[in-house]
């Protein structure tokens, strides 16, 4: 699997080249184009494993319930992936480790990577942003997308990131939900609400913009919908 990112950073699309026999698993709806020999199967889980329960968990995560598997039938093939929102993408090479990815940032990964819902407990629920996380485990390449630019933050000790700005982080980091200000009232009025506090040693990838904030900025200009 060979990933090439083009039109970075604003209008990034990923071109994934697959050799015969290789399979790429992607979030549903991410494909924008592909060569004609590509075989697509849709499952609720990783191929040949998992079940409906895992799929349901993934749906709650803000990821769609279904995953698409791309496999070239004869010879090599290529698939293009694009996100809904403007922004950058990044690739990460998992080497028998775990990466926790924020619900909407997962785009695609190699077949050898295990996709699981990393339930972070009740504390995630309180963060008010994306409640669930996708846990990518194993060995292989991973493709993530962001809203805006991606910048890595090396954490050694403690670091605080607004939960809407997290793209992914190493599992070696422990995280807890905390308030941004000194008092709860100030945190609430400051619009920061709850933030994620990371502890340990590892990398957090952040996105420059928060999709939720952008959405609510647009809100007053949009036509009301029926309840």
């Amino acid at each position: 699997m060979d990933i090439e990112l083009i039109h970075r950073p604003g209008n990034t699309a990923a071109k994934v080249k697959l050799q015969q026999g290789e399979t790429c698993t992607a979030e549903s709806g991410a494909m924008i184009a592909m060569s004609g020999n590509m075989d697509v199967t849709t499952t609720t889980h990783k191929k040949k494993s998992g079940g409906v329960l895992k799929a349901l968990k993934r749906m709650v995560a803000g990821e769609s319930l279904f995953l698409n598997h791309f496999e070239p039938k004869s010879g090599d093939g290529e698939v293009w992936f694009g996100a809904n929102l403007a922004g950058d993408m990044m690739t990460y090479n998992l080497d028998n480790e775990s990466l926790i990815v924020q619900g909407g940032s997962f785009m695609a990964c190699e077949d050898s990577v295990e996709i699981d819902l990393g339930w972070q407990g009740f504390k995630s629920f309180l963060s008010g942003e994306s409640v669930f996380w996708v846990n990518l485990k194993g060995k292989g390449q991973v493709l993530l997308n962001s809203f805006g630019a991606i910048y890595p933050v090396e954490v050694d000790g403690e670091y605080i990131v607004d939960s809407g700005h997290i793209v992914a982080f190493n599992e070696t980091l422990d995280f807890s939900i905390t308030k941004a200000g000194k008092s709860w009232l100030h945190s609430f009025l400051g619009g920061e609400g709850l933030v994620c506090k990371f502890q340990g040693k590892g990398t957090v990838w952040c996105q420059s913009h928060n999709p939720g904030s952008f959405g609510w900025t647009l809100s007053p200009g949009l036509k009301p919908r029926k309840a």
Partner: protein
Amino acid sequence: MNTSAYQVRVTGELNPGVSRESAVEAFSKLFKVANEKAENIFSKAPVVVKKGVDEATANKIQRALDNIGVQSAVEMATAEQVPQAQAQNEQKSEQSTNGSTLERAIERASNAPLKQEVHATSRLVEEQPGYQFKIEGQPDYAFLTVNIPAEKTLRVEASAMATMDTNLVMKTKAKGGLGRLLTSESIFINEFTSQNGPGEIGIAPASPGDLAHVYLRDETIFLQNSAFVASDMNVVVETKWQGLTKGFFSGESLFLIRCSGNGDLWFNTYGGMIMLDVDGDYVVDTSNIVAFTEGLDYKITKVGGYKSLFFSGEGFVCRFSGKGKVWIQTRSVQAFASWMYPYRPVKKKG
């Protein structure tokens, strides 16, 4: 004989008793340009201030210049300086080097012309046969500036005009009839004609993204939905019924815009633009198609089995077969709009 082969050159000399300051000021008033620009012309003189006009117009301009004390010369333009995009002159102008700068040539090279066979090896000096133009702000916020030669007309998508010279006259035409309405493209197309000399128009597409230019030579390109930006008048722009199944299931418009003939054509994307050379089979999500060349066969299909149809999130896709080019965009307006849906305020009852 070409009637617009004359040009007016400011020699830089002034009539006796005329100061440079007053000449610059009068000049900027006459040609409606900024003082700095007029100053620039005088410091760089001799400079051609008007070209591509007929003899009478050239003489008129010379008289006007003489009135404000600026000396000028009317001369015949050489073949290189004849404005292009004149159908009968096409062959000649193709080889012309009208003010060709390296910058523009590089720009063109990145613009992926439809056919490269003519000067494939020397594209850096190849002159674009149509109108002179430049595209700035690529790839994220492409903006098009076209120089319309005197008495020539450019067809522009309604409300896409951002800036223009004052000598451009706009006419609104309900082009393409009812079909345009159905493509969700505005039913009106504006036509900008440059009178009394060449004019410049700045065109900004509605969605942020990239712009592509192709010069059609008896060719046909199909554009999706809202991709049309501008075209030469010799390009026939019409809507094409895709057939009930093709249009209906694509979730897009029922119509494509068919552009055929000879001349310039510009189209835009939402997000980045990718050009694919198709030889054989290629599948594109219906909402990511921007344009494709005629000769490619296309049909709307599902990506996998019926399970994929409903659950893959891809819905219907377009399968192209044959040999040709397909332009796709990295973002989709529909996908963005549906992302926005939860943020729409909820209507209050009563």
